[in-house]
């Protein structure tokens, strides 16, 4: 990834919670660890030396369990939380050194946010919630209402414009949250566990809405979640956070195929790998046997279905120009889908 495509760059970001974070900063730089800092000095190391380049026009997922610092991290991007040390560069501009007015303008026009608990204004209707960001920007009421109703329609809430948030279900409330964030036309969208409070079915629904919108809007989305399944599904890039440190970053495939340590491997063990791994990752060199031609970006699970139904037991993998670049057979497809612990047993069986 070249620098010109980097939208948000987080550099050496530290956040220490406590009475005197600046003084603790030197100790942390000198190598004092999280536990020692907590036990001896009574300060909590929230984020430790975070470095992250977030590509433009893609979905960057930050995944971690509760307490990993993921919500703290996303709040540094629009500076709802002040860092103890470090920089957040957006489009070449350092958010951390902005004055109050510049920061307000940044939040109004360039980065909007969706919250886990929706954080809608309870005394405003769906319409008035959606225009909230535009109102703050100072856009005329008529123009704001026009733009807002487009977004209300896009998220599927037409007809509910005059309802109050408490009259809506959780999924519908979060659609309002999404419409409110999209209406400001900011090209960065920060989503803090936006779908975590929703039922599984509604969550999938919302993920689909987000992916559909993204196909068209190409915003830079930073998406926080504690759910690996969700992370793999929507992320172009994933960063995994533990105890305030990034322990691995990469594409969903890289996370699943090459987990950095046992902690991540443990997570990925139960994942449906067929939905993450692409054909081009597991293909072998091309041969002359026939088979349906499938694009290299196709997921293993989808390909397995097609190959099973075709008369030949293999498929030819093509690149975007249609050139055949390799083949996959049924066996390799199944192997790719198998859980890693089972995979090693298969190898044992084959050796005997």
């Amino acid at each position, binding site marked *: 990834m070249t620098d010109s495509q980097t939208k948000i760059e987080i550099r050496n970001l530290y956040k220490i919670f406590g009475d005197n974070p600046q003084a603790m900063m030197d100790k942390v730089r000198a190598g004092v660890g999280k536990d020692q800092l907590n036990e001896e000095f009574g300060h909590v190391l929230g984020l430790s030396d975070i470095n992250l380049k977030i590509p433009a026009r893609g979905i960057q997922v930050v995944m971690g369990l509760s307490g990993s610092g993921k919500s703290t991290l996303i709040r540094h991007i629009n500076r709802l939380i002040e860092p103890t040390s470090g920089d957040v560069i957006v489009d070449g501009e350092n958010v951390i050194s902005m004055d109050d007015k510049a920061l307000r303008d940044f939040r109004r026009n360039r980065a909007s946010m969706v919250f886990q608990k929706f954080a809608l204004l309870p005394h405003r209707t769906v319409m008035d919630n959606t225009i*909230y960001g535009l109102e703050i920007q100072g856009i005329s009421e008529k123009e704001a209402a026009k733009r807002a109703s487009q977004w209300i329609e896009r998220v599927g809430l037409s007809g509910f414009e005059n309802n109050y*948030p408490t009259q809506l279900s959780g999924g519908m409330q979060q659609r309002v949250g999404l419409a409110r964030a999209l209406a400001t036309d900011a090209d960065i969208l920060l989503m803090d566990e936006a779908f975590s409070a929703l039922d599984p079915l509604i969550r999938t629904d919302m993920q689909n809405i987000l992916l559909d919108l993204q196909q068209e809007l190409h915003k830079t989305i930073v998406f926080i979640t504690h759910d690996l399944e969700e992370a793999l599904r929507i992320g172009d890039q994933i960063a995994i956070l533990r105890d305030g440190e990034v322990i691995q970053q990469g594409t969903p495939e890289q996370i699943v195929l090459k987990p950095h340590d046992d902690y991540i491997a443990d997570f990925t063990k139960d994942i449906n790998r067929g939905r993450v791994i692409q054909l081009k990752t597991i293909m072998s060199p091309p041969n002359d046997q026939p088979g349906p031609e499938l694009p290299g970006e196709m997921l293993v699970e989808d390909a397995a279905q097609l190959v099973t139904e075709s008369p030949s037991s293999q498929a030819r993998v093509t690149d975007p120009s249609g050139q055949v670049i390799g083949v996959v057979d049924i066996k390799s497809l199944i192997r790719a889908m198998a859980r890693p612990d089972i995979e090693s047993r298969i190898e044992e069986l084959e050796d005997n």
Partner: protein
Amino acid sequence: MDWLIEFPELGRGDLRDLRKGIDEGFKSFTRAYGESIENFFDPLLHFLIGLENLLLAMPWPIFIALVCWLGWLASRSLKIVIGTAISFFLIGLLGMWEDTMSTVSIIVVCTLVCIGVGLPVGILMSRSDRAQAIVTPILDVMQTIPSFVYLIPVVMLLGIGKVPGLISVVIYAIPPMIRLTNLGIRLVDKEVLEAADAFGASNWQKLTQVQIPLALPNIFAGVNQTIMMSLAMVVIASMIGVTGLGQPVLKAISNQYLAMGLLNGLAIVALAIIFDRISQSYGKRLQSYRQGGHGD
């Protein structure tokens, strides 16, 4: 061992000098500034007198219709409107119309002053813990000090009349307005405020678009309490020249006129109930958005 049994109090002469010193000091303050303070409150006096004259000059059916209309706008409850009409009609029938108009006008002015002063003070308190630490004990004093005690300096400063009466009523009635404004704003959901921050709202935008609207039910409870307390203070304020339903009550107490005291007292109760029901149901209507099909 005498000093254990007898409290070591200051000498008689010292105490007398102390009291004298305070009295003299306040008297000279009064002489120096009394007039300018009086002038300062002049617009308020004119407003109060103007309102009172307006209410007295207004034909009674129009007044009842006006109050009923306001009651309807605020409460949307036919029961309250009918109750209001009957109460005012009975008050008029029993010969208390003019005193009631005086009382209504002073209550209206007091409430407006309490809102005008209490709302900004409450907002200030909610924004700064230091302001809260300073104002809270002052409010405690205002609420617990016997009202007769602060009538003395007020009368010394401004004499007997409507304005000192108004001031003593305001001192008595303003604390709930300030407290509940402060409380209401502090109780606003932190997550909603964070959302406002995330969308780049300025402090003023946060205050007017988020904090005050969401604190409104509490603020309104404060207005309601303020009205109730001003009505309770009307009798005491009549001792220093406030006209209205309090004066006949005072007369009734000193002459043991049972029926007169009872009737005027009940008229105050009727006013209190009318104001209370109307303002409470308006406060409830402000929260109607909280009662949805989902969520609760």
